[in-house]
């Protein structure tokens, strides 16, 4: 009976609060909802999505499920994390997500919240790996700052960082090619590209890169190239402990270092040549003037 009196379009906060409250509390948010409706007409045009961040928790009432104390996003996060365990068996699919939901005590139908191609699961995994890498690099940096470890030369640092990141793929390596193809779907490209660039940024940041000139772009591009090619090599590597991949990685990093040396050499040679030409021109003009004088 109550719902027929609600205005068809309602502010988000009201609907969320109503959902959370038990029956007795329903009357309170109703008055605040009508206030919000008049105060902020634009709010009515917001897409109907749950507000981010935790819901207010009502102690005592509505304690049937722990979801009262977390937001939808957090719940989705938990489901995806639980689903990772089933990926080696089911692949990056809705089935793995369904199994993950089951372990949390939810119905398998909860997998319907996500895309059936498993995109969200893969993006979640990549983002988790990147976070782990950041934490690892930060820890290493702290050790260096405290003087407990040596600062690594740049090629070794890059090589270790990329290797650490790629090692996180090892448990899922069989199904990873499938994941890569899903990440390349047009729908997913903005997110996957974003994750990739921020990871590369992170690595250079911890490597001590503070350039603000064109070098910033070249360094990012070079490292992205190294990471992507090594990842592809890893997909096809069947050597024990992926030694072929790490050797490939070492070679690419060494190439990059040589290339940058060559580049600076070329630059200084260029400068030298230009100076030589200038000197020659000055000498010739002097000789001309002195001959003219005579």
């Amino acid at each position, binding site marked *: 009976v109550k719902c027929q009196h609600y205005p068809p379009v309602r502010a988000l906060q009201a609907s969320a609060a109503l959902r959370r409250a038990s029956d007795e509390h329903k009357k309170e948010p109703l008055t605040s909802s009508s206030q919000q409706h008049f105060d902020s007409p634009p709010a009515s045009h917001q897409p109907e999505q749950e507000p981010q961040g935790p819901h207010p928790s009502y102690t005592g009432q509505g304690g049937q499920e722990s979801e009262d104390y977390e937001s939808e996003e957090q719940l989705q996060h938990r489901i995806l994390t639980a689903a990772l365990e089933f990926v080696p068996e089911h692949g990056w699919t809705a089935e793995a997500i369904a199994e993950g939901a089951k372990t949390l005590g939810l119905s398998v139908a*909860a997998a319907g919240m996500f895309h059936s191609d498993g995109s969200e699961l893969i993006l979640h995994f990549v983002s988790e790996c990147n976070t782990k890498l950041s934490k690892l690099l930060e820890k290493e940096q702290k050790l260096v700052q405290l003087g407990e470890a040596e600062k690594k030369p740049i090629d070794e640092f890059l090589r270790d960082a990329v290797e650490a990141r790629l090692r996180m793929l090892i448990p899922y390596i069989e199904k990873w090619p499938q994941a890569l193809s899903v990440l390349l779907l047009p729908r997913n490209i903005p997110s996957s590209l974003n994750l990739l660039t921020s990871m590369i940024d992170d690595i250079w940041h911890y490597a001590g890169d503070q350039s603000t000139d064109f070098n910033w772009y070249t360094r990012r591009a070079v490292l992205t190239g190294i990471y992507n090619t090594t990842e592809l090599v890893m997909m096809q590597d069947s050597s024990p402990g992926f030694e072929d991949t790490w050797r490939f990685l070492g070679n690419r990093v060494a190439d990059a270092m040589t290339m940058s040396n060559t580049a600076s050499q070329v630059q200084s040679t260029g400068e030298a040549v230009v100076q030589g030409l200038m000197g020659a021109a000055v000498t010739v003009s002097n000789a001309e003037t002195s001959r003219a004088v005579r």
Partner: protein
Amino acid sequence: VYQVFENVAKKYDVMNDSMTLGIHRVWKDILIHKMNPCPGTLLLDVAGGTGDIAFRFINYVRSVRQRQLQRKLKHHQNLSWQEIFESYQKDQFNSLGDSQVVVCDINKEMLKVGKQKAQHLGYSEGLSWVLGNAEELPFDDDKFDVYTIAFGIRNVTRIDLALQEAYRVLKPGGRFLCLEFSHVSNPLLSRLYDLYSFQVIPVLGEVIAGDWRSYQYLVESIRQFPPQEELKAMIEDAGFFRVDYENLNFGIVAIHSGFKL
């Protein structure tokens, strides 16, 4: 409402086909695809009288199960023939993977037609037929994975009660899916649709089923049904999250979906 469907039961499927020019099959297929059920899902199909949704669900789950079994077999490359044979036997008897459908309807005649159809089409396992009222379901709390109601919710007098019952019988994480006629926002299409509904459908009702009034009632009840946004709000009121709708055919039909979280 009961009497309308008593008259209509036997000719229900034929009328559906002629009224919607067979598109209702596509709508129901889309509903099941959206559900994307995996084996082991327990489905409650309310107002599902003649079993259309139930049969489609079983077909879908069967094919998913087949693929699962094939994948498992591929992994059994290193086992001996004896072991492969044994595991194949075990799985073969579980072709639905423990999935089940309970078809619930308020009308005995509709259920009878449904049971006959099931027998005729060869569906034997995983189906149950229960007489019940959507506003007061004869089931325990937290039982089902998915609750569907296809073209049934507009016939429920207290929609909010039906939604609350749906919330009650679903497991945490369970999904509510509703397929129903809805409002067409495009004005040109809306005029054509109205014309078709009011002129053609009752005539078809008279010709095919000999019952003009029931189909007049049908068309009017569609017009009186709340539009997409309003139904979405009602579903949210019942406690569902991530409530969302998808218009099919420009709003002639809409699928609403919500989760019990």
